[in-house]
């Protein structure tokens, strides 16, 4: 190890380079200035955002798409508080991310100095871990620890708060002897994630699967985090058990596969919801029994035994009592499970599931997803727009969505056949997620087509990042489903508040999305009738030198079905009004 005296700021940038960081998203300011200076010489690409929240979601989008940790860097005070939403978003969806924040000089901490805020205090509850670095000499080690924590075990966001005086070359406290930190330097005595599942529990799980007559594989985002999609496919095909993929796991199992039932939950399809509900065994892989999936808990899957696999032991039994809870990495556990099932004998030795299969396919035939096409003169149906997008794009297109009705339509009507092709905000439900996340995904996967499906409410929260996409030459495509409403909230007011619409109408007149998009350097297209939909998408796909915004004027009266209303059990699922007659 050669001893080289450098400043903490240089050490920070060098440490990031050594972690393999190729891009980071950020915006400079006073406290982080000394770190922005060595960035000029660095191999790391820096993407200058228009709002720090955008930097955070870009880092998330990058991480979702590539599996590598996303990196964001911002200054102290208001920049750090602007980062709280993406940190919380990444925390709830277990997204690996490292965020560097500037801080006032160490000696000024606690004095209400200009742009001082207690960043580690504020972000304690929304990060997997955070650090306040007190000495320049610690920087390489702590950066290494931050990446280690963010990417191992249950991934999540880690924040590193850096006082200005340990990075500013004019400060004596910034001098340090450079070293490249390795695992041996880490000081994390309390952090030892367990990867391998317990053999005996896995054997018990295999026996339960063998004996189950109505089993379902309930797949959550943990399968994607563990890069376990291939192992899952092998398992499902081996045991011929139907698979549901939660909002966070769409694409973890191909939608076009015969065994795929699609998404369960509040806006899941009838078959996925009902198969879970009537199962005798739920094999939960990297899922967390979120209330949006279970509905009213005491009526959830009443006959099901539970096998629960999760890397985070705090998830096992947190919501629903388990019969077998296996702590471990989903990929390793699924592989061991396949082995254990093989040892027990082939699928011929399993319980007879013929009746279950035909029940399930009966539901699929009777209750497909449906919508009524618009009549001439009516506005576009959002589902139709998503279908057209799906049919006019390659199956490996990366789709990022905002939060609201358009998110649910996207999850329902797109066909996700590849892992890491659907990126959205599940746990926190952050409006405005899609455009910055799409920019982050495109940055990490420049050769892939990236579409953001956004709502008009969401668009108005983060659209300014399209300026970033133009200036930084990161072209994405935005399908803006403009229903002039905070549509999802409108739907709840229609269904549960007697159609008393309170503060959900945005505006039919402003903004002019085409002009707005053009002013940000994008190509912009407005689409109002069904015949224009496909040509507009085709045209958007032909433009690759800048971002494109296609505004679809959609029907505000349209609601998302099926729906399990809040507080109801999954057995009380409301199907599309046209299918109500089919329910017994």
């Amino acid at each position, binding site marked *: 190890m050669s001893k080289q005296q450098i400043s903490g700021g240089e050490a920070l940038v060098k440490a990031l380079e050594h972690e393999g960081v190729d891009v980071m998203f950020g915006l400079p300011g006073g406290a982080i200035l000394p770190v922005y200076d060595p960035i000029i010489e660095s191999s790391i690409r820096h993407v200058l955002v228009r709002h720090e929240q955008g930097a955070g979601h870009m880092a998330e989008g990058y991480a979702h798409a590539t599996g590598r940790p996303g990196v964001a860097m911002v200054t102290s005070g208001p920049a750090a508080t602007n980062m709280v939403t993406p940190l919380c978003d990444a925390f709830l969806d277990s997204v690996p991310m490292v965020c560097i924040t500037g801080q006032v000089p160490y000696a000024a901490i606690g004095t209400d100095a200009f742009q001082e805020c207690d960043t580690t205090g504020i972000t304690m509850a929304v990060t*997997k*871990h955070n650090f306040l670095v007190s000495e320049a000499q610690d920087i390489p080690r702590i950066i290494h620890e931050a990446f280690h924590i963010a990417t191992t075990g249950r991934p999540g966001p880690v924040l590193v708060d850096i006082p200005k005086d340990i990075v500013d070359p004019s400060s004596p406290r910034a001098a340090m002897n450079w070293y490249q930190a390795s695992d041996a330097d880490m000081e*994390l*005595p*309390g952090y030892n994630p367990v990867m391998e599942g317990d053999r005996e529990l896995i054997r018990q799980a295999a026996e339960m699967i063998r004996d189950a007559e109505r089993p379902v594989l309930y797949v959550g985002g943990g399968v994607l985090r563990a890069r376990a999609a291939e192992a899952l496919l092998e398992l499902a095909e081996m045991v011929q058990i139907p698979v549901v993929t939660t909002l966070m796991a769409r694409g973890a199992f191909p939608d076009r596969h015969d065994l795929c039932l699609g998404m369960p939950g509040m806006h899941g399809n009838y078959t996925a919801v009902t198969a879970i509900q009537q199962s005798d065994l739920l094999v939960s892989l990297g899922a967390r029994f979120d209330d949006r999936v279970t509905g009213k808990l005491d009526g959830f899957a009443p006959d099901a035994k539970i096998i629960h696999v999760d890397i985070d032991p*705090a998830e096992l039994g947190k919501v629903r009592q388990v019969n077998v809870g296996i702590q471990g990495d989903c990929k390793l556990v699924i592989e061991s499970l396949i082995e254990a099932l093989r040892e027990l004998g082939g699928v011929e030795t399993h319980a007879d599931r013929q009746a279950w299969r035909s029940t399930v396919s009966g539901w699929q035939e009777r209750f497909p997803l449906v919508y009524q096409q618009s009549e001439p003169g009516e506005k576009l149906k959002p589902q139709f727009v998503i279908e057209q997008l799906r049919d006019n794009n390659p199956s490996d297109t990366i789709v990022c969505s905002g939060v609201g009705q358009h998110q649910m339509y996207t999850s329902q009507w797109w066909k996700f056949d590849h892992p890491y092709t659907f990126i959205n905000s599940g746990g926190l439900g952050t409006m405005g997620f899609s455009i910055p996340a799409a920019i982050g995904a495109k940055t990490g996967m420049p050769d892939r087509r990236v579409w953001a499906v956004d709502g008009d409410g969401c668009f108005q929260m983060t659209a300014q990042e399209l300026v970033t996409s133009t200036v930084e030459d990161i072209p994405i495509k935005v399908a803006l489903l403009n229903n002039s409403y905070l549509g999802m909230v409108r739907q709840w007011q229609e269904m549960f508040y007697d159609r008393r619409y309170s503060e959900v109408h945005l505006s039919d007149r402003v903004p002019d999305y085409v002009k707005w998009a053009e002013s940000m350097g994008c190509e912009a297209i407005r689409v109002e009738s069904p015949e224009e939909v496909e040509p507009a998408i085709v045209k958007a796909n032909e433009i690759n030198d800048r971002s494109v915004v296609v505004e679809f004027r959609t029907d505000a009266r349209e609601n998302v079905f099926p729906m399990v209303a809040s507080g109801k059990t999954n057995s009380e699922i409301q199907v599309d009004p046209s299918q109500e007659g089919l329910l017994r």
Partner: protein
Amino acid sequence: MNSATPTQRWHTIVTTVENKPGVLARVAGLFSRRGYNIHSLAVAPTDDERFSRITFTVDVEGSPLDQVVKQLNKLINVVEIRELDPLDAVERELMLVTVCADAGHRHDLLELIDDWRAFVLSENDSEIMLSLSARPARLDEFEASLRPFGIAKLQRTGRVALPSLD
């Protein structure tokens, strides 16, 4: 009604944590976000200076502590956690108390101090300061028997605990 003694509805959790700034705030935050009140808390370095031991008792009658313990385990700075059943643990707490001791009652008070094997730490004509270390329930009783004399100041440390040796 539950016939358990008051001490039994309290869970004692003993955590070994890294001796670093902010660790107590992380630990305490996990309780406060769930609306659990920390009843008593004692923090001090262990025999190894790199680590501290935090002993706390929480009033969680009826609500499962299991989830909090699991969440505590997820904190990077928490190295070890033990939930101690009061029946299998030795618990001690220290009390410092200043009691009124005018001439008329001084003799009775000194007798009581003697009976309880408490220590006199400081005294003047009107008051006596004393200390007692005992099981928390015993301290409750001692406190009750001092009350008739008049308690001027009282401070308890919160309990510390270790598993008993069978």
